[in-house]
């Protein structure tokens, strides 16, 4: 058709225009905002941003601050445990339930409810459930185990695990539902074939099923990981960083320096470090994961 080309061209144009609002806002806000923060992290801004550059002073100070080191350690512990445990628990539960369950939609809704709650509410609920006088410790003692001790929120060496429990509660249901959906997609014949060949169940899972669940794993990682980096509300609601500074996290450090410590430069430096850390982990991985499909 003779008119095919101009129409195609016109469509391409409108397509570009249709995407512009989104790309523009993303560009201005994310790239612009991030760049601004990075630039001002090299200044000695206190209460207000001032373009008075002092080189790497803020970073030096940052890495000499105990609270920042504690924050990083906490984020590492929380992040690694969160990823590993939510995957293992989610997968094991999903494998146990890989069959038609009665009232399935309702079941999945209930499992997903924690994920639909704000971290603030989750933090408050678990602050209470982990309270030694009314929560888990008290219930277990009531069952007869009188010396049982479980008081993570008041013990600075394990408080981050108390936060982790709340995080796991919120996120594991999601991983489980995702994996359950993935398991459903696996052909019945594969199980039969594996059984005929006499392959043990765990081997079938490990070598055949898990590799097939790759897309589900990726979705889960992206969702869980983006929650880990941003962990802030949960800590604020559950422990407020305490006892002392033992459950501080980087996002809270940044926030406190920017708005309460009135030391903007320090806050910017800390948030730049966070950006850098995320970029170092995400960018190579993302290109390996998604980039190859692009060409393939």
């Amino acid at each position, binding site marked *: 058709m003779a008119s095919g080309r101009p129409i195609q061209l016109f469509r391409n144009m409108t397509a570009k225009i249709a995407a512009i609002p989104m790309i523009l806002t993303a560009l201005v806000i994310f790239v612009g905002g991030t760049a601004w923060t990075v630039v001002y992290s090299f200044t000695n801004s206190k209460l207000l941003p001032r373009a008075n550059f002092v080189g790497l002073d803020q970073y030096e100070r940052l890495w000499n601050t105990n609270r920042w080191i504690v924050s990083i350690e906490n984020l590492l512990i929380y992040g690694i445990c969160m990823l590993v445990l939510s995957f293992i628990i989610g997968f094991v*539960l999903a494998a146990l339930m890989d069959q038609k369950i009665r009232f399935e939609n309702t079941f999945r809704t209930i499992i997903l409810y924690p994920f639909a709650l704000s971290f603030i509410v989750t933090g408050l609920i678990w602050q209470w459930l982990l309270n030694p006088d009314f929560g888990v410790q008290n219930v277990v003692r009531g069952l007869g185990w009188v010396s049982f001790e479980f008081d993570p929120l008041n013990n600075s060496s394990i408080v981050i695990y108390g936060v982790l429990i709340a995080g796991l509660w919120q996120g594991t249901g999601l991983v489980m*539902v995702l994996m359950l959906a993935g398991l459903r997609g696996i052909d019945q014949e594969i199980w039969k074939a594996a059984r005929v060949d006499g392959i043990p169940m765990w081997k079938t899972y490990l070598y055949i099923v898990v590799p097939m669940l790759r897309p589900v794993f990726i979705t889960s990682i992206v969702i869980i990981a983006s929650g880990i980096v941003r962990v802030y509300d949960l800590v604020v609601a559950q422990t407020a960083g305490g006892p002392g500074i033992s459950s501080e996290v980087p996002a809270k450090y940044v926030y406190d320096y920017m708005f309460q410590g009135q030391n903007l430069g320090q806050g910017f430096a800390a948030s730049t470090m966070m950006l850098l850390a995320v970029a170092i982990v995400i960018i190579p991985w993302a290109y390996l994961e998604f980039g190859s499909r692009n060409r393939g």
Partner: protein
Amino acid sequence: MARAVTTQRKVTNTVIAWGVGLLIFFPILWTILTSFKTEAQAISDPPLFLFFDWTLENYAIVQERSDYMRFLWNSVIIAGGSTVLGLVVAVPAAWSMAFVPSRRTKDVLLWMLSTKMLPAVGVLYPIYLIFIRLGLLDTRGGLVIVIMLINLPIIVWMLYTYFREIPGEILEAARMDGAGLREEILYVLTPMAVPGIASTLLLNFILAWNEAFWTLNLTAATSAPLTAFIASYSSPEGLFYAKLSAASTMAIAPILVLGWFSQKQLVRGLTFGAVK
């Protein structure tokens, strides 16, 4: 397709499944139950499960102390507004990515998604400055825009995956019949994508409803939503568990109810479209 198992295992598995489900649901249930107890009953030892004097006094006190309806209304406006605005911006973008892809479409999508992984604190201060300059601090309009922007990558991504499943030939046929671009998107594409759009809407609404980082930092008295309402109860009310539970229940009830009546969309939305 689920694995074939014996009836006996089926029963066992169903029992395990519901046991796990109840265990996960228990903290929420306990919070709701506690909100109907008196303060003394809330901390009684051993804990009271169902047999206590049900009372509404906590709700009355919470309502009297802080105007729940105002927070609720702010939440509805902010979450609803940002969802609608997000859809208006995202539908054309997702349409262009799904049906008129260019060589860079995948890159743009990937880059957009990666912004979702970045810590929000990185752009907090610039946005704070812009808000002051434009007089948007502590306004619902400002929050609508920010939360829309924060969730935009996810909306576009989800819509894109749904749109891609719609055969392009149908849109082409509509075009042959003389449908313009506006009609094509509004009357052909959108109706076919309704289930996907509904899930996207619900997910975005929940994300916006729960957004605490931005709402706590950019609002004060007039435009604070329910996240701020519940956060205000966390410290001073630390030892009044019945009231705290009432406030929590009031904050989460709308989501629980909404989710209950749209279970299918909720599951699909919360799993980011991974569960069909």
